[in-house]
């Protein structure tokens, strides 16, 4: 007797729309397959999700907590709300918090016009910042021959850390500290230019959603990110 496949198709609703999910698919993946746009910042297709930015938080009926869509697996019978006035306000607040925590000055940023934080702010209608700016001064690291790490513009999405670990296998980037004192570091906190593990591949620069990791010498608005996704997915597939 042939073995019965355990592969199951799950049915659920997102914003009232009936959708199907295969096993291990996250709510975010299912939503995007069905053209339901849930904003994200830390998520990068091809890298493991971490739910760091909290922009993709959704409501699931029967659950009294908001859940990050990027790391929550779709379940049979789930009733997901991805868009509501309340969620919209939360997402705007997250963007405001990010904008006030460090120094995001689009006017003089190399990534202006190509920045995911900037475009999310525009898309969500964050046209004013109502919270006080912290004006925390972080040191920009220009020690690398080709790249600059400007921690003033970092949103701690950890894409750099994940791509360096999961794809390049170097694990040059990591995170130190906790909470508001968290910082991305290279190796054990040495200047990037002194890192013994960095292969100078530039993958971290390619996936950085903002102007934190950029090519040296780029002037305002000149830093465009290559379309790294197809390569990443291909590499990911080979690895698996």
């Amino acid at each position: 007797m042939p073995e019965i496949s355990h592969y199951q198709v799950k049915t659920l609703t997102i914003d009232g729309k009936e959708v199907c999910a295969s096993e291990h698919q996250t709510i975010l993946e299912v939503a995007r397959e069905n053209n339901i746009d849930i904003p994200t910042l830390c998520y990068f297709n091809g890298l493991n999700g971490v739910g760091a930015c909290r922009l993709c938080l959704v409501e699931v009926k029967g659950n009294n907590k908001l859940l990050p869509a990027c790391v929550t697996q779709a379940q049979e019978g789930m009733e997901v709300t991805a868009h509501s006035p309340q969620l919209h306000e939360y997402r705007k607040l997250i963007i405001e918090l990010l904008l006030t925590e460090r120094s995001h000055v689009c006017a003089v940023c190399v990534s202006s016009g190509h920045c995911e934080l900037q475009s999310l702010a525009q898309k969500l209608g964050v046209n004013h910042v109502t919270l006080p700016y912290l004006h925390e001064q972080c040191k920009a690291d220009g020690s690398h021959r080709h790249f600059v790490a400007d921690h003033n513009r970092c949103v701690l999405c950890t894409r750099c850390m994940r791509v360096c670990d999961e794809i390049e296998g170097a694990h040059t980037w990591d995170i130190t500290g906790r909470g508001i004192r968290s910082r991305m570091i290279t190796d054990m906190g040495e200047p990037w230019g002194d890192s013994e593990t960095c292969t100078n591949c530039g993958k971290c620069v390619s996936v950085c959603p903002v102007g934190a990791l950029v090519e040296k010498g780029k002037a305002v608005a000149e830093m465009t990110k290559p379309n790294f996704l197809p390569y990443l997915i291909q590499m990911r597939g080979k690895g698996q």
Partner: protein
Amino acid sequence: MQTIRIDGITRIEGHGRITIQLDDHGVVEDAHLHVLQFRGFEKLCEGRPFYEMPSITARICGICPVSHLLAGAKACDAIMGLRIPEAAEMLRRIVHLAQITQSHALSFFHLSSPDFLMGWDSDPRERNLLGLVDKHPDLALSGIRLRKWGQQVIDLVGGRRIHNPWIVQGGVASPLTMAKRDEILSGIPDALAIALRTLIFFKHMMEKLGEETEVFGNFRSMFMAIGREDGNLCLYGSRRRHEGWLRFADADGNIVADNIHPRDYQEYIGEAVDSASYMKAPYYKPLGYPAGMYRVGPAARLNMCRQCGTPHADKALNEFRHMYGNISLSSFHNHYARLIEIIFAIERMEQILEMPIILTDDVRAEAKANEAEGVGIIEAPRGTLIHHYKVDGDGMMTGANLIVATAHNTLAMNHGLKQVAENYISGHEVTEGMLNRMEGLIRSFDPCLSCATHADGTMDLIVDVVDSEGQLQQRLARRR
């Protein structure tokens, strides 16, 4: 003793206050310009990559961001230790000349001409651009058109009118297309016609402005500008052609210091700190402070050049010199000099745009930081602009010193204020028209106080006359 305060000065770029000190007999003892606000760009840029500086410092000003972009880019070029491609240099010159045109047009038509045309003592509610549009529509609209055209050229060449990120370290971000070149060229005859027409108009008007010429900053002082070997008017200062070295002249036009390399500027220029103002007071070091007072700007530049180097501008300069002598000591002549420079800028733009090299693609050179310091100097509309950057081994900024054109004129503006005050205010009851003349003196320098420090504020005018006991004797108030 009485103190008169003009707070703040109207129709200038920025926010400032004038204090006039009178003795018990109402005779002027001293007059002083205070710049009231502080922005601190020199400090906030520390730790940034040096090549971000042009765009950061451009935010100092919305009127002349091109000047800061160019001075910043030149300082970056010096840090990289390279010579930018010739086409890039020519393109930078085009936007610079366009900026001279639009900025001078703003100063002459929008800010200063209401004084000449509406009268110094006219109703302040009409003594502005809108009043001008009402009473002298042709001239007012000419001014608006000329300024608009200058802005359009900046837009066409660099893709944006204000805070244009196209000017970058090592050159410019993109080349000029033939279509845009031709569009700019097609606007030149009209722009030149406006400038020449205005010059004729102002030449006649100057006959009625003899008193202002006599007392508006008419004194002996040194002058400073960047120069060229052939002695012609130098606005950009090409590293490629070894132009743009600093030059000082005395009040008789004799060159007293020449060929000062930008990196050596601090050997000749000291910066005194005035406790009553956020604007520093630069002085010529060999003479000390305050004897080393010098002036920069359009009239200073024309005093120090042999010729402009273009036909109409040279003709206008010769006429000017024929009427007022080779060396103009009156700051009121800055207005005339601005018109001559506008003519020069338009003609020079045409000359450059007709060079085949202007359409070539090689517009950017690349290098890392190869020098620990770099100085970029340019003649901004208001005078010599100096950007001095210091970097660490990674090219990150460790320090900056900016001497903005308006600041060079600090001592001269104070000197001129006293002269005007002595002439109009001593022993008289203070009227609004008298105070407007004080402001007019400041306007003749076209100061950009936002550049010189930083400014943001209302442009209301309140004048208090206070006696030695601190009692308010007279208050004149003007609200926008």
